[in-house]
């Protein structure tokens, strides 16, 4: 039964991705009207625009253009950059790798920090430590990542120069150095993901701690520690898994800003540059890749929830 459920979700994810691709294509190439004029500027010659149109197949009908574009993507060809004539794939490849690295490091920091702080807040609810964590998360929620990043940068790279100002990962000579370079941007991303998740998990935990089965476990004569580790945490974390999808959205949005703050050569800064330069194929490629990462990570979180929840596992 669960296999079928996962399969439906998978199909749904693929369909969603397909529609997203239409949406991206439409927004990037159709909505703006005459792309040639947009990209080359109004002063460009008619001849230059013609050459440009041919290069982008702009003379063909829209549906055909979409077909060509999508067909290329399926073959792994995202077209050519309008700015430097390089293949988009070649530009994106290393950037994608960098972004994935920083995302994974942030994620690895995020999990323990969130679980620890949320548990502390829930177990000592309404005590000073809970209020303190609540205040911290509130501040975190109110600080956009470019603000928290800049502040971290100021303190730990400028005032006390432990970490580099620019996260030039490509120059890293050893993994340890890479980690030092990654530390500040990853912590910034971790903060932005954790603050929301901590509040959510705390609320979930408190709900679970108030539940009758926790009271029963207490009254069975189990120690508080066992009750929390065996009954409260597992039951609170599973529903909180859904927050992960939300956090991925933060992560992806955050990556764009954090890469900017630390001049990190990832997908986010590539997207910003390509929008400024109106490099349509790169914009399309990056947004599509980002959307697919998001969609499939969501799918993964959904499936994990299903597998971990006995209610869904055994009908």
């Amino acid at each position, binding site marked *: 039964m669960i296999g079928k459920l996962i399969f439906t979700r998978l199909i749904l994810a693929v369909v969603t991705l397909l529609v997203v691709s239409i949406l991206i294509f439409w927004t990037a190439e159709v909505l703006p009207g005459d792309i040639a004029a947009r990209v080359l500027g109004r002063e460009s010659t008619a001849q230059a625009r013609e050459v440009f149109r041919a290069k982008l197949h702009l003379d063909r009908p829209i549906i055909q253009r979409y077909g060509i574009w999508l067909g290329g993507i399926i073959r792994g060809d995202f077209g050519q950059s309008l700015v430097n004539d390089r293949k988009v794939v070649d530009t994106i490849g290393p950037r994608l790798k960098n972004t994935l690295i920083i995302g994974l490091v942030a994620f690895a920091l995020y999990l323990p920090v969130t679980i620890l702080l949320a548990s502390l807040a829930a177990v000592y609810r309404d005590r000073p430590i809970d209020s303190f964590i609540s205040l911290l998360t509130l501040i975190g929620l109110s600080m956009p990542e470019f603000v928290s990043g*800049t502040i971290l940068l100021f303190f730990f790279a400028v005032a006390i120069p432990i970490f580099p100002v620019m996260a030039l990962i490509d120059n890293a000579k050893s993994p340890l150095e890479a980690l030092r370079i990654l530390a500040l941007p990853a912590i910034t991303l971790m903060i932005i993901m954790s603050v929301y998740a901590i509040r959510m998990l705390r609320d979930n935990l408190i709900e679970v701690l108030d539940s009758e089965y926790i009271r029963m476990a207490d009254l069975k004569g189990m120690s508080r520690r066992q009750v929390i580790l065996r009954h409260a945490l597992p039951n609170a974390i599973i529903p909180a898994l859904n927050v992960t999808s939300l956090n991925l959205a933060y992560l992806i949005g955050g990556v764009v800003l954090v890469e900017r703050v630390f001049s990190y050569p990832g997908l986010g800064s590539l997207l910003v540059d390509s929008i400024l330069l109106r490099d349509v194929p790169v914009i399309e490629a990056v947004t599509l890749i*980002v959307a697919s990462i998001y969609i499939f990570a969501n799918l993964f979180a959904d499936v994990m929830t299903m597998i971990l929840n006995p209610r869904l596992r055994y009908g």
Partner: protein
Amino acid sequence: MDNMTSTGNSTPLPAMPSFRQVIRRVQRLPPTFLIGSVVLIFYLILALTGRYWAPYNATKTGTGPPFSPISAKHWFGTDQLGRDIFSRIVLGTDDVLFLSLSGTLIAMILGVPLGLISGLVRGWFDEVFMRILDVIISIPLLILALLVIAAAGSQLSGNSFLLIGVIAVVYAPRIARMARAVALNLVTSDFVTVARLRGESTLWIILHELAPNATGVILVEFGVRAGYAPILIGSLGFLGFGVRPPTPEWGVMISENRIGIVTSPVTVIAPALALALLVIGLNLFTDGMARILGRSTNQNP
């Protein structure tokens, strides 16, 4: 029909409370609500009166040496072009408030009715509508905003109306989905069943059964969204897609002044704090409002 009101659910005006009663009532409000209100009123005053007392014109360059530190003349120093940071922060308030609130409001006006109706009528309309929403929501918020800006092109870049539009487009689907969930939840309740068994029209049910119960959730949703809007505007400004310079905008200021962070950190910290405090104020206010209405703010942003 004018008799309707005498028996309808319109709340009659309560008797004027005494001063002491007012104090007591205010004391009973959640502290977050009170602090949030104070912060918001402070910003409103800045936005409305700032232009009359701000020490300098926001765009006036050379009011002092570049990146001059804190002084009596320049409370928060000056930026690279010698513009007064304090004046720029004060005069940037009205823009961020106006853009955030109007963008969120438009998103609510678009999203809430669509979501409520979709949840109420169900059927194929609902399914198609939800699919489309799911697709739009599956593009992360900031990426979607950037995509819309990219589509709008260079002529519109930096235009306030573009920013309002971006906020509305990005928020509306998420708000619609929330409203739909609210409607679905209410539609299955017994009191709506009773109304349906009485043969009430869909409009009557929306106005008299759903709306009064949905307002709390919708208000909280508005607060949560409006609280994030300044962050979105600031982020876009920081990335260079916000309000067109030299108009003062906190996100742009943080971005511009980063090169001076070593010599004059206050030029970065001050707009950052201004933004953070506004968002904290909005969040506290919403949290307090949610407590008063008995809801939780921790719903999906």
